[in-house]
């Protein structure tokens, strides 16, 4: 993290001066607070998770906020400064006349740290060219076999250098809210999001599933957003029109990365470099109009409609097919045009009608239509290059998929008594997708029911039930192939395409049941209790393969208790259980397209998450208006399991290969359990506040923060992982892949802070 102690000190001084200068010159009213303190931190804080989204360093810290109003309470100036001078600093200023206009401006920074452990041998030559040491590249290219290359690569990567893997987000926002009349309001705002730094990215080399390189990709992106809204409300009318423009610009269109295994390009053995595209510049313009009208019936009734139109465009110039000089000139790689001229139009219509024809009866009808119309042209690419290595003359078309979604619901609620309300009604949700998707139309029909009970003023019970049954038109597993390939190649591609029995979960027939319960009790002035629970079951009755069953349930409770004026306690606990079952099949291929497609190679997997979260707060007033003490504690424990098992009698290719264990008793699908992913987070803080006088408070804080994290995917990950090129039966081939070693790691930190808070 960038250290800017001098700048931090100056910024703090400036913030304090600004707040002091805002002090009332006349009979104005100032409500202001300036915070200044220092902290020390001990413990192990090297994990990227410690400062994932914050800058928490030892040293001086401070902030301020103020509200200055004129004596009549008409005009105001408000400001807030937090973490001044740090990489997560925030500044906000507003000025205006209450109810008339408001000028606002904000600036904030936010780090996003991915890993503090990443190491690489690639060095930057310019912003988006990553070079591997030539000598090692040459040696690897000249090595006689994979085992020798692997040994050389491993020895070389042992000297990889640390590289920061983080970016900084800077957000600026300014705007104006103006109410020229009681019934009219204008609001306009501009926001920019500026990201710069590095994030992990990867590039495959070799055949699909062959070697790859993880690298630290540069990030230099900016999004500019403009909004403008006009709002009008008078009598029965409520009207709004608005505009949203969002413009994404990426200073980097590509990253070129040295292939560690080759110093020179080859037309067959691979390139010296690979090139990957980064997110292209794009823009969106959206217009929206909303109108609501109170209907002139003899009872309350209203209809509100919204229409919105959006246009998304992208015309970044295409990169060439490959950076491999020996392939780039192939005539099949001539681009059909220089850019995509991508265009998506979106249409939204929403109508909501509400009525209360009887005091006990509320009616609601809602209809929503959303059309994602993809007008991007279909381009034909007569050839392409796989991973900058292999030239293919298989024709490919892009598939600009689009969809429509319609949702409608009706519901009625009836108040039986003041304390009993029953609500329910049917709903319908339809997806219509373009023909490249497997299911062209998917309809869900169902009903929602809710019961609100207020047996007493101090008690509330809410219960909800939802049933939805979703069915689609015939599942067409080859539609995507037909859309993207030359018709003559489709039949040949089908055997190696998707398993015909697969049902993708977002297109599959599904029955869902959801139940929710919330209870809130206030039996005494000093006591409040809440309890919530939920259960949901998503069943995919016709999915032989893919997601088959998804069950989620949770329970939570909260208690707030203030038995004495000087003592307040609150505590909450939540548990969540998620369980998803899926089925798949190991489908080895021998030669070009001889597929072993046998049910004995099926495997099942169940992914389960168990998460406990607990929070306790205790506030004590030790000496009224002089001394108080607070304790806060949060504990979270998450456990993510991924279990799997295969059918007996695995039939690999050749039979017995790639099975566990190899042989006739093999467990098909090479499907062992993964180690559990575990995290335990503890956040504790004790805060003692001494109110020296009316204006000054001294605050001492001790905080303990601890994260223990086990994630087998990154724990102990090094740039070179010699055992990672392993097949299902445990046979290890020489590894030729390059990782970043972007581990996460545990942290435990003891934070001591002392600060002074001065209120004007």
């Amino acid at each position, binding site marked *: 993290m960038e250290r800017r102690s001098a700048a931090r000190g100056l910024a703090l001084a400036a913030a304090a001066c600004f707040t002091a200068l805002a002090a009332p010159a006349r009979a104005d009213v100032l409500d202001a607070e300036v915070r200044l303190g220092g902290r020390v931190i001990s413990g192990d804080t090297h994990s990227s998770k410690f400062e994932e*989204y914050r800058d928490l360093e030892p040293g001086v810290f401070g902030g301020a906020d103020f509200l200055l109003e004129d004596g009549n309470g008409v005009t105001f100036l408000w400001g807030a400064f937090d973490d001044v001078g740090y990489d997560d600093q925030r500044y906000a200023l507003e000025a205006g006349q209450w109810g008339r206009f408001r000028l606002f401006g904000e600036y904030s920074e936010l780090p996003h740290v991915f890993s503090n452990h990443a190491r690489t041998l690639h060095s930057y030559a310019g912003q988006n060219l990553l070079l591997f040491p030539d000598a090692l590249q040459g040696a690897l290219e000249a090595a006689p076999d994979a085992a020798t290359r692997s040994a050389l690569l491993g020895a070389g990567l042992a000297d990889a250098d640390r590289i920061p893997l983080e970016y900084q987000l800077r957000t600026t926002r300014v705007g104006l809210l103006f109410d020229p009349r009681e019934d009219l309001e204008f609001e306009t705002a501009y926001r920019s999001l500026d990201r710069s730094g590095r994030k992990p990215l*990867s590039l495959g080399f070799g055949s699909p599933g062959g070697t790859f390189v993880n690298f630290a990709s540069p990030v230099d992106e900016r999004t500019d957003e403009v909004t403008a809204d006009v709002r009008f409300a008078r009598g029965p009318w*409520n009207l709004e029109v608005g505009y949203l423009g969002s413009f994404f610009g990426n200073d980097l269109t590509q990253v070129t990365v040295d292939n560690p295994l080759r110093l020179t390009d080859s037309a067959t053995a691979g390139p010296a470099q690979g090139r990957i595209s980064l997110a292209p510049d794009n823009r969106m313009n959206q217009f929206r109009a*909303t109108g609501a009208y109170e209907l002139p019936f003899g009872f309350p009734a209203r209809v509100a409609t919204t229409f*919105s139109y959006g246009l998304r465009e992208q015309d*970044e110039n295409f990169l060439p097919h490959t950076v491999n000089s020996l392939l780039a000139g192939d005539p099949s790689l001539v681009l059909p045009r220089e850019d995509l001229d991508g265009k998506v139009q979106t249409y939204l219509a929403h109508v909501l009608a509400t009525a209360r024809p009887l005091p006990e009866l509320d009616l609601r009808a809602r209809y929503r239509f959303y059309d994602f119309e993809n007008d991007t042209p279909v381009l034909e690419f007569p050839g392409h290059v796989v991973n900058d290595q292999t030239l293919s003359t298989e024709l490919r078309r892009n598939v600009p*998929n689009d*969809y429509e979604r319609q949702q409608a619901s009706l519901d009625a609620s009836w108040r039986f008594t003041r304390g009993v309300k029953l609500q329910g009604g049917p709903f319908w949700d339809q997806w219509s997708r373009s023909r490249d998707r497997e299911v062209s139309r998917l309809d869900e029909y169902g009903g929602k029911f809710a019961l609100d009970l207020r047996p007493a003023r101090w008690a509330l019970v809410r219960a909800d039930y939802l049933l939805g049954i979703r069915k689609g038109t015939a599942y067409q597993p080859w539609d995507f192939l037909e859309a993207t390939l030359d018709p003559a190649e489709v039949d040949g591609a089908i055997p190696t395409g998707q398993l015909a029995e*697969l049902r993708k979960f977002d297109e599959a027939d599904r029955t869902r049941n959801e139940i929710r319960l919330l209870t809130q009790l206030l039996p005494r002035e000093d006591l409040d209790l809440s309890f919530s629970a939920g259960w949901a079951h998503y069943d995919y009755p016709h999915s032989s393969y893919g997601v088959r069953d998804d069950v989620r349930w949770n329970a939570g409770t909260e208690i707030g208790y203030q038995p004495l004026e000087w003592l307040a306690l609150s505590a909450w606990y939540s548990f969540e259980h998620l369980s998803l079952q899926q089925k798949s099949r190991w489908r080895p291929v021998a030669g070009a397209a001889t597929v072993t497609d046998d049910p004995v190679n099926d495997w099942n997997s169940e992914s389960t998450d168990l998460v406990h979260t607990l929070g306790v707060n205790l506030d004590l007033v030790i000496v009224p208006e002089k001394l108080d003490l607070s304790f806060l504690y949060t504990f979270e424990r998450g456990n993510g399991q991924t279990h799997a098992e295969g059918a007996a009698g695995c039939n690999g290719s050749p039979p017995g290969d790639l099975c566990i264990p190899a042989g006739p008793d093999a467990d098909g699908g090479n*499907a062992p359990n993964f180690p559990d992913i575990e995290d335990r987070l503890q956040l504790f803080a004790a805060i003692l506040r001494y109110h020296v006088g009316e204006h000054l408070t001294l605050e001492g804080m001790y905080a303990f923060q601890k994260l223990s994290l086990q994630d087998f995917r990154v724990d102990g990950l090094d740039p070179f992982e010699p055992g990672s090129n392993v097949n299902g039966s445990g046979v290890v081939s020489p590894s030729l892949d390059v990782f970043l070693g972007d581990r996460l790691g545990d942290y435990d930190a003891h934070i001591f802070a002392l600060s002074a808070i001065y209120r004007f």
Partner: protein
Amino acid sequence: MLTEKNARSELMARGCEACHGPGAEHVEEEGTGGRMITFSNASPHRIEEGKAACLSCHERGSRVHWKGSPHDSRDIACTDCHTIMKKVSTRDQLSHPTELQLCGSCHLVRRAQMFRNAHMPVREGAMTCSSCHAVHGTVNLALVRHDTVNDNCYSCHAEKRGPFLWEHAPVNENCLDCHDPHGSTRAAMLRLTPPRLCQQCHIETRHPTEARLPQSKFVIGHSCMNCHSNIHGSNHPSGFGFTR
């Protein structure tokens, strides 16, 4: 404080009566007479009368979608979330110090999710619930602020908006197919650990279909994204497998 000097309408100039209704009878009978609009839990009329009182001035903006919205239809009163007579939060006159505490008082599990290993910067204070949700009503399910869930995500992650030359179809439809933005035990807020995440929908032949040993290069590091790193879409002419 509303006064005649800073009021911008006749109603506002009435001060306390702007919200609580006529109080003459109440004053004349020394607090025992008349029926003023009150907003406390003890008030039998607080929900409907209270909402009407607030909306008489605050119907514009996000409240245009309030009537018939999920919170309105469940009789959530304005004063369940906002408090007027005392300062509890720094902004928006919330009844709890922060939005996370306020929303979490009913949505207990959502609040708990923010403490998971993979999370948005909500507990760090850089985002709030209202960064994504417009709690007074929207034209979308789950009170999502923008037209679609994806539009919500694109407001900060515009690099994933495209359109791309090679589209990953579910990406265009719903970010939530793969991510849980409230927090997850799995990295990148993914719903499942890759390769299982991808294997929900990919049973093509060869390497994607093997369940894999945990030490496999298809599992560790960035798993499937070790090669298919442009999984949200690619603009590279040879990027149809999202590898370029």
